[in-house]
């Protein structure tokens, strides 16, 4: 459709003077173009960009995009120059707007991360102990199809969804508690889930489904106790109640470990805690995926409330936020999301901490696209970490090793680059 427009416009390219005339009114046409939203300080200086819509020269667009790229105004600048299809002016304007509004500079990040995530997915589907190739699958090789359907697809699905969920939930926890170190474990999700899994490994008939269910129940139970205690004691004590429940769950876990048979049971408890996406089958995950997706939808819908909760409590209340109930609801949703993931995968460290930070460094705000980006980055991290976990050594390695190994240097790089300025939650 776009090429069609170009062709049409090419046939009757208006003269330059005409362009200048059409500047004024066309500016109003795109009031909500956030990326180009200029401060109205000078007034007329934002007008020329609009002429680009009337002067679509394909080649000039390319030149403009390249120029914008060359002068380091980043991807957005290049895309804008491309979008408005004018050469030098496009580049200059792109430079101007992206330079003035640092904060919009990375608005292309969500698209890029989506692309990266898709690439990681394809790789994840193909790589592993039994390498698959596209040609053979397309040729209808039964063995290859079998592996793809029963092993790789559920595993990749869980990696993407799990990473997305952990990243998004991390964003929610950090925002609601206004604490850059806040993590789901602050209110006892993962320690509860670990204790639940250990309980199932020791006392329930050995089956993956039983461990998962017990871990899910353990995580929810721990958070339920923490939130119940907090709401009984009055708001503001959620963190304290969470810490208490967290250490209680750790104690339970310790006692369970003491009673475990060191050869078999202790090893599988430890292995569960380290986290892995191994042995995930299609039959095991639908319930947990559904819970996770429902929770995520809830969190995305409540994004505005999540941001409001980060405001000082008295102020938020006078802005009409029922702080206590809203916080409970959002934490409950975030907990559901996290518990449904880690009960299947085991504890996965660092994604919930890392992904939101990277997302915020890229967007420098906490709008909805930052939440999305946290999720996408989490998905990439977990998918890539999982690919490495199953290919790096002869035996399957815990995935947490790689989430930390991949994520920490990237975060350090972003911080050292002065890219964030550290203006988010400090």
């Amino acid at each position, binding site marked *: 459709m776009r090429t069609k427009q170009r062709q049409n416009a090419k046939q009757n390219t208006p003269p330059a003077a005409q362009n200048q005339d059409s500047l004024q009114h066309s500016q109003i046409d795109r009031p*909500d173009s*956030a990326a180009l*939203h200029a*401060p*109205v*300080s000078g007034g007329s200086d934002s007008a020329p960009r609009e002429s680009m819509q009337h002067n679509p020269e394909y080649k000039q667009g390319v030149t403009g995009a390249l120029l914008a790229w060359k002068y380091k105004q980043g991807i957005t600048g290049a895309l804008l120059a491309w979008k408005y299809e004018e050469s030098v002016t496009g580049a200059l304007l792109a430079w101007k707007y992206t330079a003035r*509004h640092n*904060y*919009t500079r990375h608005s292309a990040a969500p698209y890029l991360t989506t692309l990266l995530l898709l690439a990681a997915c394809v790789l994840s589907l193909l790589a592993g102990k039994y390498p698959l190739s596209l040609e053979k699958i397309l040729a209808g090789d039964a063995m290859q199809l079998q592996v793809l359907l029963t092993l790789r697809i559920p595993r990749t699905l869980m990696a993407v969804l799990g990473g997305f969920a952990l990243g998004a939930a991390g964003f929610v926890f950090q*925002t609601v508690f*206004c604490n850059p170190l806040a993590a789901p474990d602050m209110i006892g999700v993962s320690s509860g889930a670990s204790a639940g899994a250990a309980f199932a490994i020791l006392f329930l008939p050995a089956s993956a489904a039983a461990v998962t269910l017990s871990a899910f129940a353990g995580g929810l139970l721990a958070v339920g106790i923490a939130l119940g205690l907090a709401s009984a004691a009055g708001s503001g004590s959620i963190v304290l109640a969470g810490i208490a429940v967290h250490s209680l769950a750790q104690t339970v876990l310790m006692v369970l470990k003491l009673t475990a048979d060191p050869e078999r049971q202790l090893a599988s408890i430890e292995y569960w805690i380290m986290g892995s996406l191994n042995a995930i089958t299609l039959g095991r995950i639908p319930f947990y995926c559904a819970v996770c997706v429902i929770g995520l939808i809830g969190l995305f*819908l*409540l994004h*505005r*409330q999540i*941001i*409001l909760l*980060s*405001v*000082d*409590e*008295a*102020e*938020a*209340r*006078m*802005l*009409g*936020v*029922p702080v206590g109930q809203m916080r409970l609801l959002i934490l409950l949703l975030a907990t559901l999301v996290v518990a449904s993931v880690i009960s299947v995968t085991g504890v996965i460290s660092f994604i919930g901490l890392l992904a939101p930070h990277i997302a*915020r460094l890229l967007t*420098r*705000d*906490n*709008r909805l696209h930052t939440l999305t980006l946290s999720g996408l980055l989490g998905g990439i991290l977990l998918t890539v970490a999982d690919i490495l976990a199953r290919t790096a050594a002869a035996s399957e390695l815990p995935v947490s090793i790689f989430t930390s190994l991949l994520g920490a240097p990237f975060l350090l790089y972003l911080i050292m680059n002065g890219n964030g300025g550290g*203006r*988010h*939650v400090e």
Partner: protein
Amino acid sequence: MSNNIHKNSSIDTIFRQTSSSQRRTDFRSIQGSASSHNTLASESAKPAEPAEPPICLQVSSLSAGYGRSLILKDVSFCAKQGEITGLLGPNGCGKTTLLRALCRQLPFTGSCLLNGQPLEQMSSRQLARQISYIPQRSGIAISMPVTDVVLMGFNPVLGLLEQPSRAQKEKARDALRAVGMESYAEQDYQTLSEGQKQLCILARTIVEDASLLLLDEPESSLDFPHRHRVMELLTEIIRGQDPSCADGKAALVTLHDPQLALEYCSRLVLLKDGVCTAILHPAADRLSDMEAALSKVYGSVRLRAIEENGRRSLILLPRV
């Protein structure tokens, strides 16, 4: 008299402008200050104005405190529409406690009528719609664009999952324009100076469109020009000069700076140790009476008046 009212229309000149109502009473009090004998702390003794502004907030024998300790004891006053009412007093006299009680964050006894409705009977959503609270420093700790901060003001009228509409976004931009922060609309709130943050919060107050504004020491972290800018904007907001605001607002402001209070407030509630010692009307009351009342609160002080272009400014000085 009409001269005085029309002389000041420029919003940008910071130091020249006060509310016209203030000037009105100003003028009269200079003319007849010798003949008027106002009794302090008495509402009825105030000379009758042609159109008495309706009462927005009526507080009668309010007592409040934290736990068992009572901080506010039997405080009564009222705040009228179109006026700034100042709460003045030394640290620990109960200014913030009073605001917190009005926000229903503290249990209180006595009666508070907001536009004739008892405060304790209102739902918290109703309360949020009618009262706009501006803390000393806004508790926004995470990065977000200034526009988003202003849009928060629509939360009391938005549904749980509803997003601000296009018209509301337009209103937010108008509000930012009114406080002179339009060019910062897309900037990160955390990168603003304290003064700019306070202006941004005032823009949020404009879109909230509440009938009572509670401000907790809005001047405390601001420099000299910003203090006056904020108070001026406040005057504009409550008088409904701003087109996006409906009329009939009142403001209750706790202040540390008596100078600012005497300049901008139509009515001053003096608090000491949780008791209301006097209610002053800086424009109308006699200088010696006000000096005596302020001395009770701040230790002995001198109050002087400077007249410039027929306009009286009050200056508070420590006793030599």
